Each structure stands twice: as structure tokens, then as C-alpha cells.
């Protein structure tokens, strides 16, 4: 019952999303989420928000694994991160929070699924009113629509990114790196044995009025091109309507093997001046 009530609160917040005035993390936003099962039997994506005095935290997890293991992993990831976040009044070090929360989620998933194969790509975004922090394990697209342009924030823990970084560090040749550019498999995810460092932003993104945060799992990001997504987001629709439109557009592609797709949008309506 308690879990259902908590879920109810979360969904409610996902629609209304308004902090009490005068509280830390002051700023207002409008959030919306939408999902599609794609061509899969089970919806193994989880997309949820929690809003408290510290700000708003959105988590999108894309579970993988046979039967309902994926779903379980995604649910565990989301619950672990959001449960840890909920009691905060002020989140001083979001990067540290992300690191510990993701580790905890990873270990809980491992303990829960045991020998079964499975895991979750998870992305989390935290807005404290003036800044944006994000963290990522695996591949979740996180981007920011600003001045009509969709700016990518997350790079993804995929092999192509890893290769590009390795080339920059001089570990591999340019040619090797270029050959790896087509390889988009993930090399890290929650529930993986030997979990690696998560991806976080090099520094927090200073928000501007009208910024729109976009999070999507593979079912959306692989179906819709960057340009198509951008076109829907700049059309100025209300946030929930835009999220629905994105899902409808992804479904309209009718790809034979469309993955579960989820999208989270958070529109920054007013922001607090940075301290």
C-alpha cells in the first residue's frame, strides 16, 4: 500500500511539479513523461520523478534481460535512486549522490537477480532551480533544448565513445578509433558484474529560462532522428503533449523490432539565480 501511495504521489508530482515558494531549490518547472512498449511483450522501461525541497529528480531506466528481469532491474534502479533522494532538503553534492546511488542500485540489482542475466541502463537528471546535474550508466539520451536547438548532454557509455576517448588519451590510433565509431554497444550498465564509473557532466549546466530537458531510452532515440525530435520539441507544445507526440512519432516509424521507449521532458519555467 505504501509503495502504491508513494507512486501516486510521484505521478501527481509528475503532472503538477511545483515547489513551495521560498523553499530551497526554488524555481518552477513543468514535467511530462510518456512510454511505449514498442514491439516487446513487457514494458521494461521505468520513468519517474520525485520533487522535494532540494529540487526535482528524474530517473529513466531501461531494463534488459529475459522475461521480467529487465522490468525488475529498471524498477530497482529507479526506486533505489528516488528513495535515496526523497529525504533530502538540500543536495550539496549531486555528483557524489549519483555515484553512491548508482552503486547501490547496481548492488541491489545484482543481489536480486542472482544468476539471471539482466541489468538496466539508467539516466538521472537533477535540477536544483539554477543548475542541472546528470548521471548515466549505459545508454540513455539526455539533452537540453535551448534557443530552438537540441544540445546533447550525455555521451553514453558505448564503445564508440570509449574508443574516441581512448584515442584522445593516445591509447589507440585514430584509425582504430574511426573503425570503432559504428560500435554502439554499451560497456557499462547497472547490474553488470564489475560495474564501472558512471558518466556525469564535467560541470553542472547553468539553466536558462525556457530550457527543456529531454531524456529518452533507446526505443525513442533509435527510432527518431535528432532532427525529428528537435522539430517536435521546438513546436512549443505543452510538455506532456510534446512527450506524447514524441512517443507517437516513434511508434509511427513501425520498426519491426522497436525497443521499449520512454521519454521524460522537464521544462524550466522560472529558475533561481545561481549563488
Amino acid at each position, binding site marked *: 500500500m505504501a509503495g502504491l501511495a508513494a507512486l501516486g504521489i510521484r505521478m501527481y508530482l509528475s503532472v503538477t511539479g511545483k515547489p513551495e515558494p521560498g523553499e530551497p531549490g526554488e524555481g518552477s518547472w513543468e514535467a511530462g513523461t510518456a512510454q511505449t512498449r514498442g514491439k516487446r511483450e513487457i514494458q521494461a522501461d521505468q520513468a519517474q520523478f520525485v520533487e522535494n525541497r532540494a529540487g526535482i529528480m528524474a530517473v529513466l531506466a531501461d531494463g534488459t534481460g529475459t522475461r521480467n528481469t529487465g522490468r525488475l532491474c529498471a524498477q530497482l534502479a529507479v526506486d533505489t535512486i528516488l528513495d535515496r533522494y526523497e529525504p533530502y532538503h538540500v543536495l550539496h553534492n549531486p555528483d557524489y549522490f549519483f555515484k553512491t546511488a548508482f552503486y547501490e542500485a547496481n548492488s541491489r540489482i545484482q543481489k536480486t537477480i542472482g544468476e539471471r542475466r539482466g541489468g538496466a541502463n539508467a539516466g538521472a537528471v537533477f535540477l536544483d532551480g539554477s543548475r542541472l546535474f546528470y548521471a548515466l550508466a549505459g545508454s540513455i539520451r539526455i539533452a537540453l533544448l*535551448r534557443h530552438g536547438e537540441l544540445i546533447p548532454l550525455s555521451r553514453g557509455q558505448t564503445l564508440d565513445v570509449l574508443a574516441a576517448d581512448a584515442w584522445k588519451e593516445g591509447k589507440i590510433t585514430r584509425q582504430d*578509433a*574511426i573503425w570503432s*565509431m559504428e560500435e554502439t554497444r554499451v560497456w557499462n550498465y547497472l547490474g553488470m558484474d564489475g560495474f564501472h564509473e558512471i558518466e556525469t557532466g564535467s*560541470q*553542472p*549546466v*547553468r539553466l536558462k529560462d525556457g530550457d527543456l530537458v529531454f531524456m529518452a531510452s533507446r526505443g525513442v532515440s533509435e527510432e527518431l*532522428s535528432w532532427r525529428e525530435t528537435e522539430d517536435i520539441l521546438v513546436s512549443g507544445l505543452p510538455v506532456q503533449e510534446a512527450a506524447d507526440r514524441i512517443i507517437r512519432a516513434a511508434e509511427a516509424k513501425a520498426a519491426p523490432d522497436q525497443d521499449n521507449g520512454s521519454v521524460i521532458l522537464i521544462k524550466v519555467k522560472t529558475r533561481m539565480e545561481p549563488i
Partner: protein
Amino acid sequence: MRRINSEFKTAHVSEEGRQLSNRDYFGYVEMDDFACYVLADSLDAEPSVNSAKLVVESIIRDFTEAPSLGKRRLHRYIHRAHTELARQKSGMYLKASAVVAVTDYRKIRYAHAGNSRFYLVRSARILARTEDQSLTQNLLEAERIPLDQAAAHEERNNLYSFLGGRGMPEIRVSRKQKLESGDIFTLLTRGVWEQCPDREFLDIINSADSPEETVNQTEDFILKKQETEDIDNYTLAVTFVNKTFQPPDKPWTLKRVLTVAIPVLLLAGGLGLGLYMRHRNILRQETALADCMDSGEAYLRYDNYQKAADEYKEAKTLADGLKRTEEAAEAGRYQKLAEQIILADEAMGAGDYQKAQKLYLTAKELSSAAGNMGRSYIEDQLKQTRDYTEVFDLIALGEKKEEYGNLEGAAASYKAAKEKAASIYYGEGKAEALEKQAKAEEELEKSRLEDAARRKEQEDAAAAEVAKQQAESEAGRELENQQKANDQQNAIELENKGNELLAQGQYESAVTFYQTAQAIYIRLELPEQADGINGKIAAARAGKQAEEAAAAAAQEAARRESAGDAEGEAEAVVQEGRTGTEEGADAAGPPRTESYGPGSSVQFVPPAP
């Protein structure tokens, strides 16, 4: 052909820098008569497509199809590249910055959109260059704070105009610039100008002898920084104009002479024709002006003011066109005069004579300013307005009189107005006056008849009053007479009663009745009857005295009885008393009755106590 007679040497370098892939692109084509150099820099992060390459290929293709140095053509080349980028639907929106230089080996024209640059270097300094289409404010801000991912992205594409994307680029095309031998022009992307400032770049250009050397030295300069800085893709193209195309001197052939002479002759002919036409037109206008002035004057003389106004208006237009101020002013004056008279005539026609009079007066002033033209007409009209006003005044006077009830005076005024109107052949006024006069006279007649009727009525009333008074007096008289008759009857009855009493020997009461009757007779002014009663009263008094004397004699007799001789005397006295009474009764006469006609009644009035 020009290319052979000129010497343009180009060298270029395009490298990825510290990036994984090179998304800059440079291409050029040198044709016989024209050459085109295109440099582009991809601004998007789409890994699958090189936008810069698309742009360069598009522009070079369009240029080779229709080479030109024209401004619009150059603009079109770049705009088509923009549409080509925008047409690519997959992946991200493609965006690129581009700079293009086209030359015919003598002159050069360049165009750009975004922040790729073109420099034209002459005599060791930059003679011409493109301006970046950057939002500089953001750059300044970026210097102060470390850039987060979004801000760094914004800064990198910190342009308000570029090819591709959702908007329209602002393509800037330069003017044509003449090239000189020894000029150097260069195209470079952000990767170059960011790392190699203009001053250093100019030093390198000035010190180098060939384009290759310039390119190599610049690249060395950039690569020196790669240890410390994240070098972007860099592309540089340098062209040394060692010799521009000089057209060879040719002898003056007939064809060449004709080529020059025919346009000159045509121009001179055209000019001459133009001047002649102008002169002819002026002459025609002058004639028309004179005609208009003359006919205007004629119309004024014949009092046709509408036509005169039209003619003078046209004359004024012509004079203005010919810049003949004097004629224009004169025509203006006459026009005004004619229009004023037309206006006054209209007012007159509308029956507003006061207004017409004012307008005619103004027209009179205008006429004196315009050589007394039409003055007699104006005066005639003024006189007419005066007369008309007079008629109206008379009518108004009549109305006033009528209002105060002086109908005769009103009729007279109307008559005067009618006569005046008749004398000035003013039918309308006459008809009005006549009508009013007739009405006034009718009213007068009516009032006369009413007076007569009233008088008659008064007379009748007076007569009736007199008759009534007469009747009243007669009735009064009759009543009085009747009263008198009654009174007289009463008096008679009283008198008779007195007579009866006298006869009975009641002398005292008889006297009272007699006196009452006498008083009535006196009041009824019947002196004879009153006097007649006097005797009766005297008889009654005598009777009384006789009675008293008899009583005294009786007393004396009684005493004489006692004395003896007193009897005879007492009888004598009683006898004497009886005689007196009989005489009184005779004098009173028999009781009188008088008849007062049939139906008259006799009332008895009892005597006063």
C-alpha cells in the same frame, strides 16, 4: 583564355586538428575565364554526414554550370547550398559556415555566411575582409566563466547566420574588387583564425614567397599549440595573384570604331531628340496657355463664369508647368474671381440673398484686384440682391405688424413688397407678398366682421337691459301702487273705524284711529283726505270735551241738587254735548268704501296701539 594570361597560384591545407574527424572542406575550380574558391566548416555534430563537403560540392557544381561574377548569381550559389543542407532529413539539422571567392582573373568578389573568413592582402596589409556573423555578447560572457556543455555548444555555434538549420541565412556578398598583381587572398576556417591571430598570420604571409610556404608556416604555428589546446579542424587556402589578366592592346578596327561610335551616336541622337521634343512641348504648352487666358477673358466678358473658371484653371496648370509665375498668378486671380462669382450666383439661386450679397462684395474686391473684370455684372447682382432683400424686409415688416395685430399696416407692407417685387420683376417675391397681402386683408375683413357682430351684440344686450329695467320699475311701481292702495284702504278702514268709535262716543279711541289714518294719508301723499280727518279729530276732541263738561255739570248739578238750581244748567250742558257729537258724526260722514278693481283684496291693518 584569361587564365592562360594570368598567374594565380593556390595552396591549401585541411586537417582535423585534435578532433577525431575533419569536418571542414575546401574546394576550388579554375576555369578559362573564371575561378571559384569555396571553403566550408561544419557546425553540426552529425557524425554520418560532412555538411561542409555538401556545401562545397553544391557551390562548385552550380558555379561550373553557369560561371559568373554577378552578385545575384553568387548569392544564389550559396542559397542553393543552404537548401541542400536543409533538405537532408536524417540525423541532426545540418549546419555549416561557408565563404566563397569568385574571380575573372582581373576582379574578385567574395561572399560568406557564418564565421569562415576571407582576407585580401595587398602591400602587407589586409585590404578587405569578411565580418563574422557572431553574437559577440555571448563570447564576451564566455570569457568570464568556464563553459558547461550547453554553454560550450552555444559558444561554438555562436552565429546568427549560417547555412542549413531551420532559419534563413543572411548571405553577405561583397562588391567587385579589382585585383592587382602581387595581391594575396586567403580563405580560412575558425580553426585557423582562432589559433593564429591576424597579426601573426600577416607576418607569415608577408615573409613567405609562395602559397605553399604560407600554408606550411601557418600549420606549424597552429600545431605548436596542440600540446596545450584542443585544436579544432583547421583549413586554410592561400592564393597568390602573381599576375592578373591584362587584355592585350588591339589596333582600332572598323568593328571596334563602330562599337564605340554607334552607342555614342545613339546617345547623342537620343539626347537631341529628347531636347527637341521637350522644346516642342514647351512651345505647345505656351500656345495653349495663351489660348486659355484669352478664352478665359472672353468668357469673363460674356459673364460665363463657369467656363472662365475652367479656362483659367487650365491656364494656371499650364503656367505652373512652364514655371511662369506671373501668368500663373494672373490666371489664379481670374480663376478665384470667377469661382467667387459662381459661388455667389449659386447662393443667389438658392435664395440666400444675404450670403450672396457678402459673396458678391468679396467678388467685387477680387474684381478690383483683377482689373475690374466683371464689375458691372457684380454690381447688377448686388443691386438685385439689395432689391430682393428689400422685398424680404418689407415682407418681414408686414409679418411683424401682423404679429402685433396691425393687420392694415401689414397689408400695406405686403402691398408695398408686392409692388417692389413687381417693379424688379421678382416673381417669387411678388407671389409671396401677394399671398401674404391677401391673407392679411382676409384677416382684416374677418376682424371687421367680427367687430360689427360684437357691436351688434352689445347693443342688443343694452336694449335688453333697458327693457329689463323698465319692466322692473313698472313692477315696482305697480307694487308701490298696490301698497299705496292697501295703505289707503287701511287708512279708510281706520277712518271708518274712527267714525264708528266716534259714533259710539269713544272719542279717545276715535282720535287715535283718526290720527293713524291721517298719518297714512300723509305718507300716501293724500293731503285732502288728511286734512279731511282734521275736522273729525276736532269733532272727536270736542265730543270729549263736551263729555268732560257734562261730567263736570253733573257733578255741579249734584252739588246744586244739594244747592237746587243746578239742574237746568246740567241739562243744557248735556244737550250741548249731544249736539257737538252729532256734528262730529256728520263731519265724519258715512263709512267709505272704495273699489280697486276686480280681484283686488282689501287688507285690514289694525291700528297702532
